[in-house]
């Protein structure tokens, strides 16, 4: 009878079985008490609500892209040990590789070339943990296994992982840039080059001359001349990427909040000095504000609430 009682309680019993249990209950007070104790136990043990926040739901596209990436035999992306909650962020990175149809091919020296057409962009996670977002009509060639040296023809935004022993080098027809770890945009064609530095410092070389360009500065090389002296600018007015440039590479949370605030036009400030210095490595494409805020806050271990402003608590 116990099995039938449990079937009734769990909704698995058919009409006949339910009727059988009903008659058994009416047969004696002891039977009814037994049923009530099972029912009470069933009700007591139904408490099941986690207080933990469930991670955001991945998009179907992210799942499909992961499957496609596996089909191509791509190796798993490296996991950077400094990410305290890296799973989702890396998953997003893996999912968006070649997400918008850029062409990619292998060359004889084992390099890889990415090429975008009109209206296409692509974000390429590199083996060292760096990200490169390639603008439309651009080509990026990765040279070697370490992928710390690339050729660029067109426009790309770089979020370079720090490696003090192995500089990251971007070569163009007009000059080259060398960095240890930073974020910057380079726009290059056959005759000119423009460098905009969002974070960190970049050494720009051309025509035998070299300048160091710091955060919030721009330098140019035109017609084979030496790089111009760095000039302070509002980088977000210069950088014209329709889907934004939310790419962070060990970026302090305070700066992440500032850029998210600018992009989504919502006040988002970090007053907590400990949280402000925690770093975020992640990138976003067309994710909504809620996904971006939830992810970056989770990475730094902050509790964030979105309303008229984004409130941050530890």
């Amino acid at each position: 009878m116990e099995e039938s009682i449990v079937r009734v309680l769990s909704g698995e019993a058919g009409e006949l079985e339910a009727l059988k249990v009903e008659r058994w209950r009416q047969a004696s007070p002891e039977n009814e008490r037994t049923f009530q104790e099972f029912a009470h136990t069933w009700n007591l043990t139904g408490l099941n609500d986690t207080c933990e926040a469930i991670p955001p739901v991945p998009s179907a596209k992210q799942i499909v892209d992961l499957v496609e990436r596996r089909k191509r035999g791509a190796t798993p992306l490296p996991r950077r040990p400094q990410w305290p909650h890296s799973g989702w962020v890396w998953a997003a990175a893996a999912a968006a590789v070649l997400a918008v149809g850029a062409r990619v091919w292998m060359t004889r020296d084992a390099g890889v070339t990415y090429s975008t057409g009109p209206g296409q962009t692509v974000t390429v996670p590199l083996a060292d943990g760096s990200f490169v977002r390639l603008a439309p009509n651009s080509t990026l060639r990765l040279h070697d296994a370490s992928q710390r040296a690339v050729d660029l023809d067109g426009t790309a935004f770089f979020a370079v992982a720090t490696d003090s022993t192995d500089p990251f080098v971007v070569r163009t027809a007009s000059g080259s840039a060398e960095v240890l770890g930073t974020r910057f945009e380079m726009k290059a064609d056959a005759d000119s080059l423009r460098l905009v530095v969002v974070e960190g410092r970049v050494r720009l070389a051309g025509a035998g001359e070299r300048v160091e360009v710091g955060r919030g500065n721009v330098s140019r090389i035109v017609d084979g001349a030496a790089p111009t002296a760095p000039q302070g600018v509002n980088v977000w007015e210069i950088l014209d990427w329709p889907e934004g440039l939310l790419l962070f590479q060990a970026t302090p949370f305070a700066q992440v909040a500032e850029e998210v605030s600018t992009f989504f036009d919502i006040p988002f400030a970090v007053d907590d000095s400990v949280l402000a210095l925690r770093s975020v490595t992640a990138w976003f494409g067309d994710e909504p504000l809620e996904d971006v805020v939830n992810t970056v806050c989770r990475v730094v271990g902050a509790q964030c609430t979105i309303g008229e402003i984004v409130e941050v608590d530890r």
Partner: protein
Amino acid sequence: MTVDQVDFEILPRIRNGDQAALALLLDRYWKPVVRYVAGFLGGVDAAEDAAQEAFVRLWERRRTLKPSGSVRGLLFRMARNAALDEGRRRGARERADGYAPEVATSSPAEDLENGELSGIVAAAVNALSERRRDVFLLVRHHGLSYKEASEVLDLAPQTVANHLSMALADLRTALAPHFYGRSHPTPASEADSAKPRSA
């Protein structure tokens, strides 16, 4: 619309590679799947990868899905397998690192003595044998039918019914001193009681 009806309508679309149907599945089952595997891996953060892996495996194998199967049961099964894989990898890593897992400082019995309602119930559920607990959690906490639970655990539906019945009997016995004012006879061991009833 019931879960079965949802699965019935979504499955053919998934088999045909309809990403909108996959989005519907993610909306509907992401949270339940994360909550389920969190029980294996100790929290929702750890469960995220296994849950994602379940949806990836479902999409990879979409063309071989049985049209009459339960998508929810299949997702829970794939997530369970991914979580067990992760648990094994984590165990190997921890052994390699000389990691010593935390040891509980109190027994379930002590929890029963000291805890409040939710703690008492949780301790009683944790004290169930592994198979009974698996079945109980799937049906009672995650709302799966006997058939779905049988698919997740690779058991006959009747075996699920047996284990669930015995689990509730165990819980009734464990909770009786706290809620009924008397104790019940200790049930027979699982091995003894399961043999004649398992399918």
